[in-house]
C-alpha cells in the first residue's frame, strides 16, 4: 500500500507540475458549466432543480479527457526507459499499476469535487433529489475508473502517447456508444447482452438514483479486466522483451 501511494503521489505531482491537471480542471469545469447553466438543455430551460444535464455532459467530457490523462502514464515510462528504474526497484507490477490508476482516479475525483458548487447552487434554487445527485457522482466516479483502466491498458501496449490516446478512445467508444447502439437495433437476447455491455445503461440508471448490484458488478469487471490486461501487457513488454 505504501508503495502504491509513492507512485500515485509522484504521478499526481507531475500532473500538477506539467499543468496537465489545471488544463483538465479548467476545461472540464468550463464545458460542464457551460452546458449545465447556459446552453442546450440547461437547468433554466428544463426548469427543474436537477443535475441531469450536468451528468450527461460530464459523461461525454470525461470520455474524452480521461484518455488524455492516462495516455502517458505507462507509454512515457517505456519510451524514456524509466520503466526499467521502476521495475528494478523492490516494487511489483501490480503496485506500479495500482499507483498509476490511483493517481488518475484522484485527479478526476478532485475535478469532480470542484463541481460540488453546482450542486449547492442548484439545491438552493429548488427542491433537488439528493439521492440522485450522489448516485450520479458515484456513477461518474465509476465510469471514470472504467475509462482510466481502459486508458492504462492502452498506455501499456504502446510507447507512443498519441497512439495510446487513440486506442483508449477506440476501446472506450464501444462501451460508451457502440454497444448501446447495437443493443437497441437488435431484439431479444442480443439486445439484453449489448445493453448490459453498454456503460450508458448502467450510468443512466445510476444518475436517476437507482443502483443495482448488476451495475456494480459491471463496473468492477470492466475495471478489473482493464487492469489485468495492463499487467499482462506490461510484463510482456518488459520481462519478455
Amino acid at each position: 500500500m505504501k508503495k502504491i501511494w509513492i507512485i500515485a503521489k509522484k504521478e499526481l505531482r507531475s500532473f500538477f507540475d506539467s499543468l496537465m491537471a489545471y488544463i483538465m480542471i479548467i476545461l472540464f469545469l468550463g464545458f460542464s458549466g457551460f452546458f449545465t447553466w447556459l446552453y442546450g438543455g440547461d437547468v433554466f430551460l428544463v426548469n427543474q432543480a436537477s443535475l441531469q444535464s450536468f451528468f450527461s455532459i460530464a459523461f461525454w467530457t470525461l470520455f474524452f479527457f480521461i484518455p488524455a490523462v492516462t495516455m502517458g502514464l505507462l507509454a512515457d515510462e517505456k519510451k524514456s526507459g524509466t520503466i526499467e528504474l521502476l521495475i528494478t526497484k523492490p516494487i511489483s507490477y501490480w503496485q506500479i499499476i495500482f499507483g498509476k490508476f490511483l493517481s488518475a482516479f484522484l485527479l478526476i475525483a478532485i475535478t469532480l469535487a470542484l463541481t460540488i458548487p453546482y450542486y449547492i447552487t442548484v439545491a438552493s434554487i429548488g427542491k433537488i433529489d439528493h439521492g440522485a445527485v450522489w448516485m450520479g457522482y458515484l456513477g461518474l466516479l465509476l465510469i471514470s475508473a472504467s475509462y482510466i483502466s481502459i486508458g492504462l491498458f492502452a498506455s501499456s501496449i504502446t510507447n507512443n502517447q498519441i497512439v495510446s490516446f487513440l486506442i483508449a478512445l477506440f476501446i472506450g467508444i464501444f462501451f460508451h456508444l457502440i454497444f448501446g447502439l447495437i443493443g437497441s437495433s437488435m431484439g431479444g437476447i442480443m439486445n439484453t447482452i449489448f445493453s448490459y455491455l453498454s456503460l450508458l445503461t448502467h450510468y443512466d440508471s445510476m444518475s436517476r438514483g437507482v443502483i443495482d448490484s448488476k451495475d456494480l458488478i459491471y463496473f468492477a469487471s470492466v475495471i478489473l479486466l482493464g487492469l489485468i490486461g495492463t499487467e499482462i501487457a506490461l510484463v510482456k513488454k518488459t520481462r519478455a522483451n
Partner: protein
Amino acid sequence: MEVSVENISRSYGLQKAVDSVSFKVNTGEIVGFLGPNGAGKTTTMKIITCFMSPDEGDVKIGGVSVREKPENVKMHIGYLPETNPLYKDMPVIDYLKFVAELQDVPKDKIKERIFEMVQVCGLTQEKYKKIGELSKGYQQRVGLAQALIHNPEVLILDEPTSGLDPNQIVEIRELIKKIGKEKTVIFCSHILAEVEATCDRIIIINSGKLVADGTSNDLRKQAQKKEILKVTIEDGDKNEVFMALQKLDTIEMVDPLPSYTNSYEIMSRAYTTSRRSIFKLCVERGWALTEMTPIERKLEEVFRELTIKN
C-alpha cells in the same frame, strides 16, 4: 554479497543474446564486464537486476534466486542502467527522494542519504534544478546518486562514466573503488583503460558467450602465448645478424625494423623464450646487445583478438 550467475541464456526471437554464461563475483570485488556492442552485456545486467527473466539458468544474489524472490533481491541492488532512467521534469532532490522511498530507505534517514549522495556525486549546486535542465554529465551523476541512495550491497553500473569530464571520471572511479572495498561491483564499459584502472577482474563476453575471465595480467598472458621482443644488436653486419637469429631454435620469426638502427622484432615459438639464446649468440659472435625489450600486448589487442576471432 556474492553474485553468482549460473548458466543463464536469453534469446530475442531466434537470436541468442546470452548463451549459457556463468560467473561469480565475490564481496569486495570490482569486476569489469567487457564486450563489443551487442555482445549481451546489457542483457546480462538486466537479468541480474531482475528486469528480465532468463530463459534458462538462474542468478543468485547472496544465495537468493532472482527467479524465486525478485523483490528480495532488488532491495540489495543499486543499478544504473545504460539508458540512464530519469524523470526529466522532476527536480534532482525530488527524484532522489522518490527513489529512496521506493528502495525502502527509512523515513528519518532519507534526508541524510540524499544530502550525502548530493555531496558525493557533486550535485550540491544543481540539487533544486529540474533534471532535464542539467547537462549530460550532471544527469549521469544523478543516475549514479540514484543507484547508491540506499547504500546497496551489490552495485551494477552500465557505462557509468559516459558523458563525464575527465576530472569527474577520475572522481567516479575513485568512488567506485572506495565503494568496491566492501561491496560487490559489476561495471560495464567500453573503455578498456578505465576497466583496467578500476577493476580487480575482467570478464569479456562476445556474441553471448563468455570468452575470458581473469585479472588484466592473466588475460594478457593468456592471449600472449608467444613472446615478442624488441632487440637491438650492434657491431654486426645486418644481414648476418638476421640470418643467425633466424637459425635459433626457439625463434619463429624475425622482423627487421625499418630504421637505421639494427633493431629487430622477434617472435618466439609458443610457450618458449628466446632471451637467453639471443644473449648467448651475441656473446659468441662478439656483437653488442644494446636493447632487449619485451613487448607487452595492450589490453585492446587482447580484447580484439578474443572478440574478433569468431
